[in-house]
């Protein structure tokens, strides 16, 4: 059992700018821990977390997998990246932040190189107008079906992943899991449901995607 990363350096002032770790964050960490053996045995070199927020999940991954991997973190919110780096430091792991939209500016050079790809997206169903800020709303505003941000990433996942690469994604029921599965299947990625959790009104799932024919 790995303890949750130390986030005592963060306080309520920080959470005005960055997403405070919540059930979705913890579910993703629990799912990664469940898969630890298979993650380790794949000997990942490059890990990328899109939308790293406080950095807690990348920190947790880095604590579990160790310094044999390179941990890249992106976010559209500049505060999130500063906080992510501090969270890494607080927990003695090296995280490498890049302020960018999704995996943009990294996608070309990381083509078929990402061994572990993580995304806890803005999944809340909101009006479309709320999507696209770079402040804290970017942490949850998902637009129609809570899919508007995620749908921009999905077509690129197969290009980003290495042959043994794995993509972990957090969704809620409203995001239409079946539809996501069908989209990814077209890109020869197959889906597993790693973990489910109900948190108040949210039915959360962690989905895992790997290549059908690596």
């Amino acid at each position, binding site marked *: 059992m790995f303890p949750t990363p130390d986030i005592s350096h963060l306080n309520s002032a920080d959470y005005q700018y960055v997403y405070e770790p919540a059930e979705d964050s913890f579910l993703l960490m629990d799912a990664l821990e469940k898969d630890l053996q298979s993650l380790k045995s794949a000997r990942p070199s490059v890990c990328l977390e899109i939308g790293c927020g406080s950095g807690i999940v990348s920190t947790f991954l880095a604590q579990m997998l160790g310094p044999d*991997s390179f941990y890249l973190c992106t976010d559209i919110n500049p505060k999130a990246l500063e906080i992510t780096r501090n969270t890494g430091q607080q927990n003695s792991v090296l995280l490498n932040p890049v302020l960018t939209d999704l995996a943009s500016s990294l996608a070309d050079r990381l083509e078929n190189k990402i061994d572990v790809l993580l995304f806890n997206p803005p999944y809340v169903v909101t009006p479309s107008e709320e999507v696209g800020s770079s402040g804290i709303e970017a942490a949850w505003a998902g637009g129609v079906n809570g899919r508007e941000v995620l749908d921009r990433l999905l077509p690129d996942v197969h290009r980003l992943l290495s042959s043994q690469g794995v993509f972990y994604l957090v969704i809620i029921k409203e995001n239409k899991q079946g539809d996501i599965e069908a989209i990814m299947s077209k890109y020869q990625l197959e889906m597993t449901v790693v973990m489910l959790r109900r948190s108040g009104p949210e039915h959360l799932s962690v989905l895992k995607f790997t290549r059908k024919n690596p």
Partner: protein
Amino acid sequence: MKLLTHNMLTSNIIKGVTKGFPLKIAASEVKVSEVDFNPEFIARMIPKMEWSALCQAAESIGQLGDLPKELAPEYESDEEFLKKAHHVLLEVEVKEGELICPESGRKFTIRNGIPNMLLNEEEVAK
């Protein structure tokens, strides 16, 4: 921004830019620190690097040292070489400065070690 990260960044997210690599570095603050040496990790990362771009970047900020510009065969077992590569890849960090697109000249700020690759809407390649 470590030089390993720099080696992964391209600016061809900009309309009209074809390759956008490597980005030129104009550094106003570079920090060198100690990072634990992990030879296996370095050996596995080197094939993923654009080696000449890495050397060019290091040289441009005066951190190339005696890192060879060409990879020797059997570099994976050359610990001295791996240590030098480790230093350049992970121990050198650009804290403040700019990245410059080699095709359009567009500048991207590096603040507090974090490169800002966000574009304005009109700049984005569709």
